[in-house]
Every structure is written in structure tokens, then in C-alpha cells.
């Protein structure tokens, strides 16, 4: 299978580069070869379903790490991803926290961006058309300062073509009011979820905070309120001190930890939530390569998101998609959905 793949690809590349000089007969041959190549590639079915949402593969970008989808173009064509989750949007633009906003930590980073974003209106006008044009599946991450405002942002997305889903951020540690304050209380999480659902015609995914005593109770609250899916996890709170100046390294003092350092924690939270609810779970936290992604899928996540890894390697998402395909081939798995939740626990 592997060698077949390699050959098919080289044929395509070769023919492709010369195709303009070919007559009709040759281009038919070329087309036939292209189909063959495509069939080989298509043998592995990477499609996954998150409720009513069908994705061409299980790899998405994590909110806040991939801008509005355009920043890493042309290195990454957003149309090739399972979905693009854009930077968290609020009703009005928000300038964010004072710098320094980021600091590196062992195999991770802390951020206190403060949900800086261009606001719903500008996103719809300036960013969405391009994403639509690229055939990207767009999930809009939203947040509000009050339960009512979450509803207003959702309402602003109602009926908008080109948006496939809403991810509700109730878990950002970097803003005073809102954010994590909503996600640490099961009852408030449920109210936010209901408010968004009431104002939305799209699948609603609730993004959970790991900074709670029992993530399962918050997960169940979101599920009971009607959420279509859950993203697990947002960042873990942390801080770093400058010992020379004896001040926090982040102007905000506290920041959200992300990157490989949090992966085992994230994986366990995902595992716990998968056990606790019946709705689909999207796993994230420290995923850098396809092996990391596989851990989350095997634990029961129906899809994964890639965040901090985009900074290390802009094409991390594309490499992970390819890595998953190769893994499935090697393991003789025809459909990636067959792999999801196959963890065996004694």
C-alpha cells in the first residue's frame, strides 16, 4: 500500500507539471491516473461527524492560535483542514491586555492576550468571505461579558452562510469578567449554553475549562442544557516571576498555559469527559504531531484541535492529517471513525 501511494503520487506530479503540453487523449489518461491516485488516497476515510457537522478530517485549528484563518496562508490552505476555529469573537472589538502578553515555559507557553479581537461585524465583513472562498469549514469561537451578551453574539451569527458551528468559550482565564468565571460553575455554564442555543441555528460546542475540581459536572451541565458537543480543554492557569525585578513576567500576572506541557492533563480530562457524556468531544491541549492526536482519538475524542503547535510549525495541522492517514494505512484501519474510543482499559 505504501509503495503504491508513493508511485501514484509521483505519476501525478510528473503528469501534472507537463499537462499543458498534452493533447486531449493524454489528458484523459492523466485524468484516469488522477482518479486512481485519488482512490488510493481515499481508501482511508478520514471523515468524522460531530453531531450534524461532517468534517473531511478530524483536525481543526484551536481558537486564538490561527488568527482568522488567513495568517498562515499560503503555507496552510484552510480548506484542507477539518475545520478552522477562529480567534474568540465578541460583539464589539476588544484591544486586549497590556504587554507582555506571552512568556515561554518548559515545553509550553503562558498567554494573557485578553481576547483581543476585531469584533463580530468586522469579522463577518472582512474575514469570512475569504474563508468561504477557500471552502473552509468555519467554526466561530465566541465569548461575552454576560449571559445575555453570549446570546447576542450568537444571534449575530444566525443565518450567516459560511459558518458551520459555534464554539462557546466559557473558559478563558485572561479576562476579568466573563470567560472562565462562566465555565467553572456548572449552573452558569448551562445558562450560557441555553442562551446561545436559543439564539442560534448552528451546532453549538461548549469549550470547557480544566481549572475546575470536577470537569465532568460542568460537562454534564452543558450536555443537559443541549450542547451539541464539547471542546476539552482550554488553557490551565499559571504564572511566571521575573526574579531580578521581582514582578510577574506577564503584565496580567496570570496567564493560560498551553503546549506539550499540558498534554497529559488534557488527555485525562478528555478521557473523563468522554466517559461522562453522550455528546461528541473534541480533544485538545498540547497536540504537536499525529501521535499526540491519536492518543486523543483513541481516548474517545471525535476530532482534535491544534493550537500552540502552529507557532512551532505552521504546517503542523497538515502534517497531522497526513500522519493520521499513514497510521490508518499501516494499521489497516479503513475509517478513522473506527479508531475513535478504542482505548482498552483493564
Amino acid at each position, binding site marked *: 500500500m505504501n509503495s503504491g501511494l508513493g508511485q501514484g503520487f509521483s505519476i501525478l506530479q510528473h503528469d501534472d507539471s507537463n499537462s499543458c503540453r498534452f493533447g486531449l487523449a493524454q489528458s484523459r489518461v492523466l485524468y484516469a491516473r488522477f482518479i486512481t491516485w485519488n482512490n488510493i488516497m481515499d481508501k482511508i476515510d478520514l471523515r468524522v461527524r460531530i453531531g450534524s457537522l461532517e468534517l473531511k478530517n478530524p483536525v481543526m485549528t484551536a481558537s*486564538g*492560535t*490561527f*488568527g482568522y484563518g488567513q*495568517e*498562515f496562508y*499560503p*503555507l496552510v490552505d484552510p480548506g484542507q483542514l477539518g475545520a478552522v476555529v477562529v*480567534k474568540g469573537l465578541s460583539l464589539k472589538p476588544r*484591544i*486586549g491586555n*497590556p*504587554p*507582555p*502578553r*506571552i*512568556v*515561554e515555559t*518548559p*515545553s*509550553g*507557553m503562558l*498567554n494573557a*492576550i485578553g481576547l*483581543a479581537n476585531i469584533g463580530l461585524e468586522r469579522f463577518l465583513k472582512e474575514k469570512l468571505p475569504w474563508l468561504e472562498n477557500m471552502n473552509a469549514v468555519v467554526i466561530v469561537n465566541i465569548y461575552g461579558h454576560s449571559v445575555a451578551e453570549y446570546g447576542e453574539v450568537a444571534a449575530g451569527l444566525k443565518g450567516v452562510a459560511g459558518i458551520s458551528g459555534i464554539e462557546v468559550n466559557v473558559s478563558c482565564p485572561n479576562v476579568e469578567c466573563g470567560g472562565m468565571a462562566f465555565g467553572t460553575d456548572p449552573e452558569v455554564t448551562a445558562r450560557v449554553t441555553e442562551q446561545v442555543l436559543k439564539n442560534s441555528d448552528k451546532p453549538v460546542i461548549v469549550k470547557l475549562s480544566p481549572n475546575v475540581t470536577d470537569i465532568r459536572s460542568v460537562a454534564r451541565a452543558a450536555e443537559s442544557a443541549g450542547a451539541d458537543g464539547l471542546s476539552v480543554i482550554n488553557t490551565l492557569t499559571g504564572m511566571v516571576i521575573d526574579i531580578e525585578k521581582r514582578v510577574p513576567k506577564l503584565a496580567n500576572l496570570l496567564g493560560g498555559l498551553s*503546549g*506539550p506541557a499540558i498534554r497529559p492533563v488534557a488527555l485525562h480530562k478528555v478521557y473523563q469527559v468522554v466517559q461522562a457524556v453522550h455528546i461528541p468531544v473534541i480533544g485538545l491541549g498540547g497536540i*504537536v504531531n499525529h501521535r499526540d492526536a491519536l492518543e486523543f482519538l483513541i481516548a474517545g475524542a471525535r476530532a482534535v484541535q491544534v493550537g*500552540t503547535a*502552529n*507557532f*512551532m*510549525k*505552521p*504546517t503542523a495541522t497538515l502534517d497531522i492529517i497526513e500522519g493520521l492517514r499513514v497510521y490508518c494505512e499501516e494499521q489497516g484501519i479503513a475509517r478513522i471513525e473506527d479508531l475513535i474510543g478504542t482505548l482498552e482499559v483493564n
Partner: protein
Amino acid sequence: MIDQYASVRFNEKVAQETFLMGLESQEIANKAEPGHFVMIRVSEGTDPLLRRPFSICSVEGENLFLILYRIVGQGTLIMSKAGKGERLSVLGPLGRGFEMPQSEEVPILVAGGVGIAPIIFLAQRLGSHKALLMAGFRTSDEIVDKKVCGLLDYQISIATDDGTAGHLGFVTDLLEDHVDSNKKETPSVFACGPTPMLKKVAALTQSRGIPCQVSLESLMACGVGACQGCAVQAASAEKQAYFHVCEDGPVFYSKSIAWECLA
């Protein structure tokens, strides 16, 4: 924007704690303009995790670009050990570079320490018949030789904090002297260096109505405008209160920056 592995052609110590690295990339060498930077992944592991930003300090021939860097921590220490032929993951060229001076203007290039990196590239582009170059260092051991910089034809005015070479004091003294004793000139200042120096340059030029472009630094995660991590406060809070150094800069007109907010 190019993302590729570039081969190290050389990586030599050129002054105290300071290295010059030549990286092979035709695409980056072709596209680079003075003020542009690259994000380098110093090792394939996860610690250090983030890429490190470096100004492009020169382009040689068709497929070589140079960076001049100072060892200040873990990442730059790892880089200093990279041998010839080693391949480093490089993303670039990134950012907005310097705007070229008007024909009637006398460009005055002001560098502090390793901040000379983007200034070298600009100086090469402008040529010594046009531009003046002043550079400050802490001590003579840190001075990067002008042969190494490819600036042999320049008469560089030097200042050192300890007086071991050139003027005893700051490079900003040299700048002030020059503009005040050449009032008939129409100067245009281009500067890169530590924040305290840039603050002085900004104040000095602003009070005299001299246009000034500065290349700023900031901690960065993505380098392309995706993370909003590299914010710097804008002087006018009309529309946008923060600039992002990676995409709005790293070169800015100094009057557009709220210097009082920079540490």
C-alpha cells in the same frame, strides 16, 4: 512567507557573545528587504518551544542571507553551536521593513549593540555616499568589525559606554551632536537597539521634527499576526490601541509609538 529548512553555511563568532550566521535559502534571500525578520526554530524538540525572531542583516549573492545575533539565553546559546551544514527551520521573510528615505533627505542610521543587524542591511542598500552610520556598544569587545558587516566604505561613528573605543557615552550623544551642528541638512533617522536608546532617539528626533523609523522588538509566538502576543501600545488610541510588532512592524515611525508604555 516561506517555511523551509535552511542549511547553515557558516556560524562564526564576530564579537563578544556575538555570532554571524549565514543561511542558505534562495527564496528568502530573494524576498528580503531591510527591516524584515525571520523566525528560527533553534531545535526540533519542545524546549525551547517557540521560534526566535532575528532581523535579516544582509543578503549575499543569490541564495544566502545572514543574521547577526547575541547570546542572551537558551535559544541563542543552542544556535551558537550549530555547525556548517546543519539545517534549521526558518520562517520568513516577515514583517514590514524600512521605508526608503526621500531623495533630499540625509539618512542617519543609528544602532545600539546587536540592534545593528537590520541597520547593516539598510546601510548596504543605501550606500555610504548617501547614508551616515553611528553605532553604540557597551565596550570595544562587542564592536562588530565593519569588514564583517560588509560596510568597508562606511565611516562609522562609534560610541562605547566605557570609552574603550570611540566616544565615551551613548550613540544618542553622537546623533544629537550631528543634527544640532548640521542644521541645514534634512535628516531622516533610522534606528534599532535597546528600548532606552530608542526612547532617547524618539524624543530627540520628535523635539526637532525629524522623521524617525525604529525597528522594535517584542516577545513573539507566531510572527505572522495570528496570536496577538507581540502587542505594543500605539501613540494615538483612535482606532487601534495596540500594534502587533510582527505584522504592523517591526519597523514603525517613532511618533506612532506610545514610548511611555515601553519598559
